[in-house]
């Protein structure tokens, strides 16, 4: 007997007899003897809830948390308690994909609301129930672009696209005759001349990230014009938090918007689960991957929601499908929906503004003490790349000793060009005291 397995021995006996076999072993008789496992799995003995709790607690305590200035796509934001409260309702988390609409209106309506909010933030027409993360979203968006531009086999990416996004894209197209070509950067932004030189008939479109990996906000006016003139697809990857303050995909005249929702109510959790968002102009509707929820009416004319346009999906199109996504990150999309609802129009703006004020205050304080200088003198959002005058690794290790994760060392990720460069992120959670403390420690070791 086990708490999760309710069968009494009496019941087992009576069930076996109803089936017409004499033992459970007989139910496995169709498995050839030669391959059956004839020993016990080499796994420990069962543990009680109390023991498991202690074991996991002690594992979790082997991880260390600190005042964090780490970012690069995963940020330490405030998460209102209401978010966890709602996603902990088991009506939500113990359900699956809403195949049976009549008993899944909770999930369906919340996805519809999620889609609406993503469309509102990006300014585009259609969205879906979420993708795995912002990085894999770039692969899905690339496929949409390749399928939209005839005879294309090349996706252009900005040098300053998140390096992990680049790597995921590379793996995605591994062994296929699809080329991912990098457009060079210049002073922290896309080099327009290099972009022009790389646009050819084979190109489907460009993925550009703003704020980019270095934290810099790109002005896409010129880029967008060039792409439109050449009938190419513009894909913009953006931190969703930036969209309340800065231009969105619609305002840049982009075709597809992607990004990662972690800043919206999702814990850092060592990088996952988060959720990816994707939105597009209406023309791309039938090329969208994943589940899409639509509004309709029931037999009595009442408003309701269903999974729709399913003919795009793998369970119908099978080997003709252009995406294989089935399970997505629905619960995390719900977390983001609750987060956006709680923070509201003014809250989202305020959080973005505070992150900006904090990053700019931080940069000016570091510059003031001559700790080094910002890598590129360009507008930035909640993150900036700072080049220390001293060995950055030892700066970070000193900060760590004093309870601060001081930023991400870029040289190991981006190469020698980034010697002593550190990507530093601020959120509304970081206080003046924490920033001042950071600056003081750095000042002490200059």
């Amino acid at each position, binding site marked *: 007997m086990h708490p999760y397995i309710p069968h009494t021995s009496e019941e087992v006996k009576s069930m076996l007899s109803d089936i017409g076999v004499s033992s459970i072993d007989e139910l496995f008789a169709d498995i050839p003897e030669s391959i059956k496992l004839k020993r016990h799995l080499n796994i420990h003995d069962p543990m009680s809830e109390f023991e498991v709790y202690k074991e996991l607690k002690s594992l979790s305590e082997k991880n260390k948390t600190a005042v964090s200035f780490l970012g690069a796509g995963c940020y330490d934001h405030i998460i209102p308690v209401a978010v966890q409260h709602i996603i902990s309702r088991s009506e939500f988390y113990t359900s699956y994909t809403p195949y049976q609409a009549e008993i899944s209106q909770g999930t369906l309506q919340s996805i519809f609301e999620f889609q609406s909010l993503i469309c509102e933030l990006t300014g585009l027409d259609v969205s879906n129930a979420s993708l795995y993360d912002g990085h894999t979203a770039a692969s899905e968006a690339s496929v949409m672009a390749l399928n939209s531009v005839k005879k294309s086999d090349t996706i252009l990416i900005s040098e300053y696209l998140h390096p992990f996004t680049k790597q995921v894209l590379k793996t995605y197209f591994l062994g296929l005759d699809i080329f991912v070509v990098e457009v060079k950067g210049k002073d922290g932004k896309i080099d327009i001349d290099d972009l022009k030189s790389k646009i050819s008939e084979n190109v489907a479109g460009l993925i550009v990230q703003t704020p980019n990996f270095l934290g810099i906000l790109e002005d896409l006016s010129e880029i967008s014009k060039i792409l439109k003139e050449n009938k190419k697809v513009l894909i913009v990857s953006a931190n969703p938090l930036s969209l309340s303050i800065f231009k969105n995909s619609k305002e840049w005249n982009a075709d597809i918007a992607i990004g990662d929702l972690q800043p919206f109510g999702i814990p850092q959790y060592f990088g996952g689960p988060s959720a990816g968002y994707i939105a597009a102009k209406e023309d791309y509707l039938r090329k969208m991957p994943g589940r899409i929820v639509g509004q309709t009416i029931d037999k009595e004319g009442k408003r309701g929601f269903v999974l729709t*346009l399913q*003919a795009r999906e793998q369970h*119908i199109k099978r080997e*003709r499908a252009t995406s294989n996504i089935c399970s997505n990150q629905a619960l995390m999309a719900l977390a983001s929906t609750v987060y956006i609802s709680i923070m509201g129009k003014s809250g989202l703006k305020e959080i973005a503004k505070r992150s900006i004020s904090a990053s700019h205050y931080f940069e000016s304080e570091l510059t003031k003490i001559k700790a080094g200088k910002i890598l590129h003198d360009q507008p930035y959002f909640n993150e900036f790349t700072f080049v220390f005058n001293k060995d950055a690794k030892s700066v970070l290790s000193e900060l760590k000793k004093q309870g601060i994760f001081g930023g991400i060392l870029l040289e190991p990720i981006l190469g020698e060009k980034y010697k002593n460069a550190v990507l530093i992120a601020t959120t509304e959670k970081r206080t003046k005291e924490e920033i001042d403390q950071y600056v003081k420690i750095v000042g002490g070791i200059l």
Partner: protein
Amino acid sequence: MEILKNLKYSKTHEWVRVEEGIAYVGITDFAQHALGDIVYVELPEVDSEIAKGDEISNIESVKAASPIFSPVSGTIVKVNEDLEDDAELINHKPYDAYIFAVELSNPEEIEELMDADQYEEFCETEGSH
């Protein structure tokens, strides 16, 4: 199931009507029935060159998606724009609702297609397993 005598048929359930060197192509009553409520037809581009057997359009119903293969070769000269708003015309009148029209580059291909009797027999064997 309705099969019109004066049309030609493909094994992928398209019908073809030839009028003055132009082949009008649609899907058969059998095919529309199998698909169910049709909600969307992707129309090919006018002027595109196609070869027999090319996948050139897609039809979607609520629970299915089906590619349309061209039963003939040539150049697409016309598409049925009424289907953009009323894809269900194919459900109501499958033999009126052509999807695209092709100026034939190889008119002999028409003869390789099935006639009504052959198609009827083909559907019976298809449906029996």
